[in-house]
């Protein structure tokens, strides 16, 4: 039987359609995925992301250990609460997971990982601790609520005015401790907002207070179309252990500035130039792009890794893995039910901050 978050009863009470997602019983929508999508782009919505896992890292070698564990470099973090997006690679350079690391001090960090990979990630992390003074504490008991949208912060402060002094000064990708909550100015939609990490016991009352402040509950369906419009990868669809970050649009997350730093997967990346690249596609004909559809380019074939109808653009968009040499602006063909439809290669950044970017 799938696991339930502390907000399960709240979802059922709100009329959610529940589905199994990565072993969790989660809301896919509360009536209309499209309306929920627009609510986040235009106003404010909230997602239960308690299925994601927080992992606390402490110890005198915490920084040194993370500099080896992940491909981005935590040494560049010096503002307390500042966050970093990174891939955790295997020795072959494949992506074990993508994660966010919050910095509190060089001997204290928090990592947030994907739900479906959490157990695998923890097992991998624990295997890498030899010779490091580091403690890994799994925090499955914590709940997480993501508030996203142009009005999300203002509505949060209307519901929790007492949290404003701690959270108002936050810059993008920075978090602050407030009592036993962590309030982070992060998200997965391309909109401004906060992600709250809090004790499970606080979650239902917090959710209801946010609901009363006019923040609409949003399901995982809209979460997927929002992140796709923002050009953000989904682990397991757009990258996995068989793909290099350089083949997944994530070269920007590799930090090679410190030649003396040896992170897991670094040697493999140096030895294996990317054989493919991840690009954005905009369908020019009518139809809907979906994952696994075949893409034909002048340079060779590829596949769609994520595709959907974009509610903001009112067109179909996708992320696709294609041969190197395919350029932005190129015309390609996508096979849908035996027909080849016309699509254009675009920058994988379709809509953010309420606006279409294509």
């Amino acid at each position: 039987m799938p696991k339930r978050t502390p907000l399960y009863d709240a979802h059922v009470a709100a009329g959610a359609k529940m589905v199994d997602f990565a072993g969790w019983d989660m809301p896919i929508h509360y009536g209309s995925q499209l309306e929920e999508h627009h609510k986040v782009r235009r106003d404010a919505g909230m997602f239960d992301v308690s299925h994601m896992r927080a992992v606390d890292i402490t110890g005198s070698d915490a920084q040194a250990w993370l500099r080896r564990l992940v491909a981005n470099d935590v040494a560049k973090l010096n503002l307390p609460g500042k966050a970093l997006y990174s891939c955790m690679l295997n020795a072959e350079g494949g992506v074990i997971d993508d994660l966010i690391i919050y910095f509190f001090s060089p001997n204290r960090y928090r990592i947030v990982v994907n739900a479906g990979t959490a157990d695998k990630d923890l097992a991998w992390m624990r295997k890498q601790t030899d010779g490091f003074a580091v403690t890994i504490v799994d925090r499955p008991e914590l709940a997480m609520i993501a508030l996203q949208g142009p009005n999300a912060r203002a509505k949060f402060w209307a519901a929790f005015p007492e949290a404003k002094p701690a959270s108002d000064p936050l810059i993008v990708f920075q978090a602050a401790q407030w009592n036993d909550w962590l309030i982070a100015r992060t998200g997965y939609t391309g909109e401004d907002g906060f992600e709250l990490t809090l004790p499970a016991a606080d979650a239902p009352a917090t959710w209801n207070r946010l609901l009363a402040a006019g923040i609409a509950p949003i399901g995982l369906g809209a979460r997927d179309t929002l992140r796709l419009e923002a050009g953000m990868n989904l682990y397991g669809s757009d990258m996995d252990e068989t793909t290099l970050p350089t083949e997944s649009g994530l070269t920007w997350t590799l930090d090679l500035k410190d030649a003396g730093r040896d992170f897991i997967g670094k040697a493999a990346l140096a030895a294996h130039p990317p054989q493919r690249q991840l690009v954005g596609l905009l369908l020019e004909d009518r139809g809907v792009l979906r994952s696994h559809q075949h893409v034909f380019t002048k340079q060779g074939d590829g596949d769609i890794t994520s595709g959907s109808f974009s509610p903001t653009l009112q067109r179909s968009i996708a992320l696709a893995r294609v041969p190197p040499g395919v350029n932005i602006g190129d015309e390609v063909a996508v096979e849908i039910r035996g027909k080849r439809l016309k699509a254009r290669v675009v920058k994988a950044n379709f809509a953010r901050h309420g606006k279409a970017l294509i």
Partner: protein
Amino acid sequence: MSIPSTLKYTKSHEWVKLEADGSVTVGITDHAQEALGDIVFLELPDTGRTVKAGEECAVVESVKAASDIYAPVSGQVVARNEAAVDTPESVNQDAYSAWLFKLKPSDPGELAALLDAAGYAAVADEH
């Protein structure tokens, strides 16, 4: 869930209206549109195409997924609803007004195999 008693149905969630001129109008049921979620694209058969009962002949795509629509009886496609193609959300708004296509049945005997409202209600309950 609405299941008008004036219509006939298939197990694959199409509704069928028997018209006075002997043609049939086909759409998807309220139960089907609800299960699919927000509909964003329709691919309808060309007029003049001949289809067999049970043949895939249209596609309804929601934000979530693509679903095949089957011909409820054999015959020739005589009309397609271009207005629904332009406004796919009309199928969510009223599944029984937003028809998809019309067929001229080649074997009117097949009509007897369609479900009535009570028969379809039992099918819809299982899914």
